[in-house]
């Protein structure tokens, strides 16, 4: 029969007031400890005293320690009849003990795992004790029993000093921690780390030192490599022209290169103390941190542009390009980032954008058309003004599409002028007509020229197109007015001149010298006035309206013959001979060139009063043609050869009143020839005659 107290129920994990049997208790014993109980019980049956400790477990797997003390009561026949006792819950007392045991066990396991070599040295007797691993480490046989002195011979000679110093220090501190090289065999060097503890007697005299030794050769080698590569990286990073920072597992940067520190003007210590963000512009910081956090979480590369304060207090735009770093085991270990000062670039781009916008705005509100070509002369830009005029969309003007707006009659000529100036990379000006979108025919003046990059590389042509219809109309009006004015002035002069000459003729034989003289003077003045009126018309044409050439293709030879014929008609006293009959075609303003030839021939007639023979030659040379008018007249002094083409200049020798004039004829000729891109000149010798010539390109 079994009876138990309420406390017993508690210890064994039964409910209060639950009736339990002896068997219920037995069932709760830890299977490993049932034998302990059985053994203790058997012993108690003999000596009457029961003592044991055992584990029991509760239904919820809680293991508890109990201590049992009991007494056996025997009858007279030494037969046990009753047993009573007490059970104590000693779980709490048992726990630290258990932990200690486990700790020891773990330490042993750690020593095994780490292949720790252990040793002990009696400081009084100098007798060493060592583990097998220690012997193995130093290169002794497993059964060797080396003396302390023998052990010391294994230390690398260079490191003996380090060892002795460390030992001396250990005697004072009580601890030894040393890394040194040993030579297990003459040709083998290894790194070891020894750590030890000094034990003292009651008089504080060191008696023993015991410790462990670890072979750290591999770690050391790996560390050296790491240190070397880290050093190398730092040298490179510090000399790099970009700013570099690195962050580690702790998220925020732990390395800043020299460029970075120069830029921020701060120390590495300051930056490492978590102050890196001080330089970031407040408006950019929150966003930067958000992007960085996200990149860190996802271990993903990121790019960020933000403003950072430079050492001089100015904010500069900086661009960060960061990539995640991984160790050999592919563990994420933070970021490495190259930061660049892109402020100049950014501001340049902003200025570029602004100037582009400005250009576009100006171009599109410009009252003139604007255009550009690529390096092949193909149009790649027209402004809104031109689009508005022509009523044709921008893309349709590209390449040679813009020519579609030019009227048929002018198109080939315009294309020709453009191509020629493009090939020669020279400026040009060309007038043409377009049909405006409202159907009106408008006169256009396009002027353009080559443009170059900053490296002086040809980039194409650019230019403008101005609507010159009004100017053209005014020019016509002005020309009409001048024509009428000169006509009206010349009409009375005609009568005066005729009457004067008639008078002179009538009084040819008079003795009245005054009358004769007066008539000569009158006629000279009339001639002067006539020349004035016609020259005025010509000069005004040249100077007022940037006189325009009406270029056409014509036969120069035919023109020379025609003019020579006309002048021959009215210069009956001279013989004009043209020594060329074959056609020579030129692209020029026929009327203006006629003016030049007429002027040359009139001069030849005028300045060769005694020799009546004048010849005209037309010579071809390569791509050009030269027309020369040759007289055998009074000639011109060499120092005046250039001056005679200047405005209002008249040859000095030319004092003969018979050679009246305004000194403007050759100036007009020079202007006309120059405008054609030709050459004009004179070869002359005083008293022998002159050769006036001009040269034009052949068509």
């Amino acid at each position, binding site marked *: 029969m079994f009876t138990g107290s309420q406390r017993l129920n508690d210890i064994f994990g039964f409910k209060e007031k639950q009736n339990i049997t002896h068997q219920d208790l037995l069932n709760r014993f830890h299977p490993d400890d049932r034998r302990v109980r059985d053994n203790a019980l058997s012993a108690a049956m003999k000596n009457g005293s029961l003592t044991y400790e055992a584990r029991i477990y509760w239904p919820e797997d809680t293991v508890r320690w109990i201590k049992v003390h009991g007494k056996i009561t025997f009858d007279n026949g030494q037969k046990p009849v009753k047993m009573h006792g007490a059970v104590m819950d000693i779980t709490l007392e048992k726990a630290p003990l258990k932990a200690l045991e486990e700790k020891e066990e773990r330490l042993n396991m750690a020593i095994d795992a780490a292949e720790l070599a252990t040793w002990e040295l009696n400081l009084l007797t100098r007798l060493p004790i060592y583990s097998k691993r220690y012997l193995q480490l130093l290169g002794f046989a497993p059964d060797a029993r080396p003396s302390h002195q023998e052990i010391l011979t294994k230390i690398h000679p260079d490191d003996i000093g380090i060892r002795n110093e460390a030992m001396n220090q250990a005697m004072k501190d009580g601890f030894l921690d040393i890394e040194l090289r040993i030579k297990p065999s003459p040709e083998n060097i290894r790194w070891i780390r020894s750590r030890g503890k000094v034990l003292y007697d009651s008089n504080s005299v060191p008696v023993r030192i015991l410790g462990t030794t670890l072979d750290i050769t591999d770690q050391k080698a790996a560390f050296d490599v790491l240190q070397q590569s880290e050093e190398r990286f730092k040298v490179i990073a510090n000399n790099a022209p970009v700013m570099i920072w690195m962050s580690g597992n702790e998220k925020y940067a732990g390395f800043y290169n020299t460029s970075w520190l120069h830029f921020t003007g701060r120390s590495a210590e300051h930056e490492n103390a978590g102050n890196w963000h001080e330089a970031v512009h407040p408006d950019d910081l929150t966003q930067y941190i958000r992007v960085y956090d996200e990149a860190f979480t996802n271990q993903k590369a990121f790019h960020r542009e933000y403003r950072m304060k430079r050492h001089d207090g100015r904010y500069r735009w900086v661009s960060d390009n960061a990539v995640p770093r991984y160790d050999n085991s592919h563990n994420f270990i933070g970021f490495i980032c190259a930061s660049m000062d892109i402020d100049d670039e950014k501001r340049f781009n902003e200025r570029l954008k602004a100037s582009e916008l400005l250009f576009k705005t100006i171009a599109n509100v410009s009252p003139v058309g604007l255009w550009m070509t690529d390096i092949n002369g193909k149009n790649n830009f027209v402004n809104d003004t031109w689009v508005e005029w022509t009523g044709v969309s921008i893309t349709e003007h590209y390449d040679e599409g813009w020519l579609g707006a030019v009227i048929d009659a002018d198109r080939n000529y315009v294309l020709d002028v453009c191509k020629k100036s493009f090939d020669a990379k020279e400026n040009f000006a060309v007038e043409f007509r377009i049909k405006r979108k409202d159907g009106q025919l408008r006169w256009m003046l396009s002027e353009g020229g080559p443009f170059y990059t900053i490296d002086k590389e040809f980039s194409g042509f650019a230019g403008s197109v101005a609507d010159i219809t009004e100017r053209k109309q005014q020019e016509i009006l002005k020309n009409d007015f001048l*024509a009428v004015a*000169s*006509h*009206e*002035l*010349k*009409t009375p*002069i*005609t*009568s*005066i*001149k*005729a*009457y004067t*000459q*008639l008078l002179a*003729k009538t009084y040819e034989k008079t003795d009245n010298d005054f009358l004769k003289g007066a008539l000569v003077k009158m006629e000279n003045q*009339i001639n002067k006035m*006539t020349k004035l009126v*016609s020259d005025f*018309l010509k000069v005004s044409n040249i100077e007022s309206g940037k006189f325009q050439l009406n270029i056409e293709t014509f036969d120069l030879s035919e023109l020379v013959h025609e003019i020579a014929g*006309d002048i021959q*008609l*009215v210069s*009956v006293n001279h013989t004009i001979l043209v020594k060329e009959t074959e056609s020579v075609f030129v692209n020029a303003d026929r*009327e203006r060139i006629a003016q030049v030839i007429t002027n040359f021939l009139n001069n030849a007639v005028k300045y060769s009063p005694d020799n009546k023979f004048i010849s005209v030659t037309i010579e071809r040379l390569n791509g050009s043609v030269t027309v020369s008018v040759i007289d055998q007249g009074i000639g011109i002094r060499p120092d005046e050869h250039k001056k005679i083409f200047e405005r209002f200049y008249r040859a000095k020798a030319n004092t003969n009143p018979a050679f009246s004039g305004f000194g403007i004829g050759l100036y007009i000729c020079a202007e006309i020839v120059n405008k054609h891109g030709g050459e004009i000149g004179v070869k002359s010798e005083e008293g022998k005659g002159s050769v006036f010539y001009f040269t034009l390109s052949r068509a």
Partner: protein
Amino acid sequence: MNKRVIIYDDDADLLEVCSLILASRNFEVITKDKCTEILNDLQQHQPSVILMDNWIPDVGGIKATRLVKESKEFHHIPVIFFSANNNVSELAEEAGADYCLHKPFDIADLENIVSNAIKTTT
């Protein structure tokens, strides 16, 4: 040889002085201050040479010259186109005239050109 010259010009003084010049060279001169009735004039006077101004009432020298040059009867009569316009030669060509003379002119030029015109036609 008929040395009759008919001059068309609206300037009375010029007509007079030209008459005097040519008369002194034994030309018979008829003057007209407009060319409205040119074909009738030619019919009536049968001149050997015509001197034609450009700006003359009422059809103008160019049209008048063309009328002459297009007529079967008178196209052979040489026309000297004379004008104070700067582009006389062009105008003369446009009109179909045979000669041109710039105003103002030397009287010798006038005499020569008229003589020449008559010579070439006869």
